[in-house]
């Protein structure tokens, strides 16, 4: 079972690596903003699997922190690449 968990964690990391290769090189900033989200979710998944396999303690707290900080980093990226405008300027979009 331990080996299975570790193998799954490895698979997820490989997936994250492939996704990162696509996003970090991708045209435009939107792709790069998504990289933080990808590593956040994939990192948490691998983290939980590795912790379940190797028996590290207190890892749920790290995962909670990772979730919050990945969200924090994503918000900062979006804010920097496309600064928020007042809602009035959205009126033309109709939604």
């Amino acid at each position, binding site marked *: 079972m331990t*080996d299975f968990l570790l193998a799954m964690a490895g698979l997820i*990391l490989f997936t994250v690596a492939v996704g990162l290769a696509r996003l970090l090189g991708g045209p435009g900033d939107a792709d*790069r903003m998504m990289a*933080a989200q990808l590593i956040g979710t994939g990192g948490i998944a691998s983290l939980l699997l*590795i912790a379940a396999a190797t028996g590290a303690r*207190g890892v749920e707290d790290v995962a909670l922190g990772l979730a*919050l900080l990945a969200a*924090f980093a994503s918000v900062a990226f979006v804010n920097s690449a496309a600064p*928020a405008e007042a809602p009035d300027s959205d009126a033309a979009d109709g939604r």
Partner: protein
Amino acid sequence: MSVLQALDIGLALLVFAVAAWTIFAPGAFSATVGYVVYGLLLSLVWIRLFAVDVALTEAAIGSGVTGVLLIGAAARLREAKTAGDEKSLSGLPRLLIAGLCTLVALALAAVALLFPDQGPSLAPQSMRRLPETGLGNPVTAVLIAYRAFDTMLEKVVLVLAVVGVWSLAADRYWGGAPGEARLARPEPTLAFLAQVLAPLGVLVGIHIFWVGADEPGGAFQGGAILAAMWMIAMMARLTEAPRTSAFWLRLALVAGPLVFLIAGVAGAIFAGSFFAYPPGFAKPVILFIETFMVLSIAVALPMLVAGPPRREPPR
């Protein structure tokens, strides 16, 4: 090769690849994204090294807060850029820097790999004396009990850093507020996220601080998460950075190192030597000190990221 070894090697290669991309990334924004990804991956490495406290700190400060700091700096550089400023390092200096960095990295790797299995370490002794401190987490014991003076000086360095950042303001802005003003009607999606995330994050941050006495966690990590939540609210323009001349702000900034110092001096009076804790009473004192440390960190980090004041103080 076992699955675990393959996983470790894969993780290490991924970290290398992301680091290499960050160095060669086109532009500050991309490089910062790469840096944040690198930091989050590094916290996975720390988990594999069974250093859970360090993993939390890496994710919180090394990756999260520093990443946002770099993003803010990159944005400000974009604003301030004038034509003809584009003069990046090239040729021989770059090669020299790369060579020196590689040399240092190889030296560190050699030291780590050639380390004898039973290297010199005070870990067994520190674990033996752990019950006297009343703590269950040896990392917290090292930070606040065994080398408390060092940790206090680190908090002083934080305060000095904030003062340094504030001193970058133009004279007329001194005492004013950094960052952007809050909006009467902030963007709804961002406001929603901030309003839901911030209270949860505050809860998680306080939990991680409090649980750090016995489980992985601690004041630094909890304070960083609290700081991140305040920064989310500021980024959503729900609230604005306070004026740098505000008394409560300055008090909160120095409260951590101040309480720490007072506890150290009180140790000299009540427990026999500077920074000694009274036996049997160590844990409450430690938690008391840590509470004010969390406050200082949670206030100092957003102030560092917000930058120097950019709006004039009211007369």
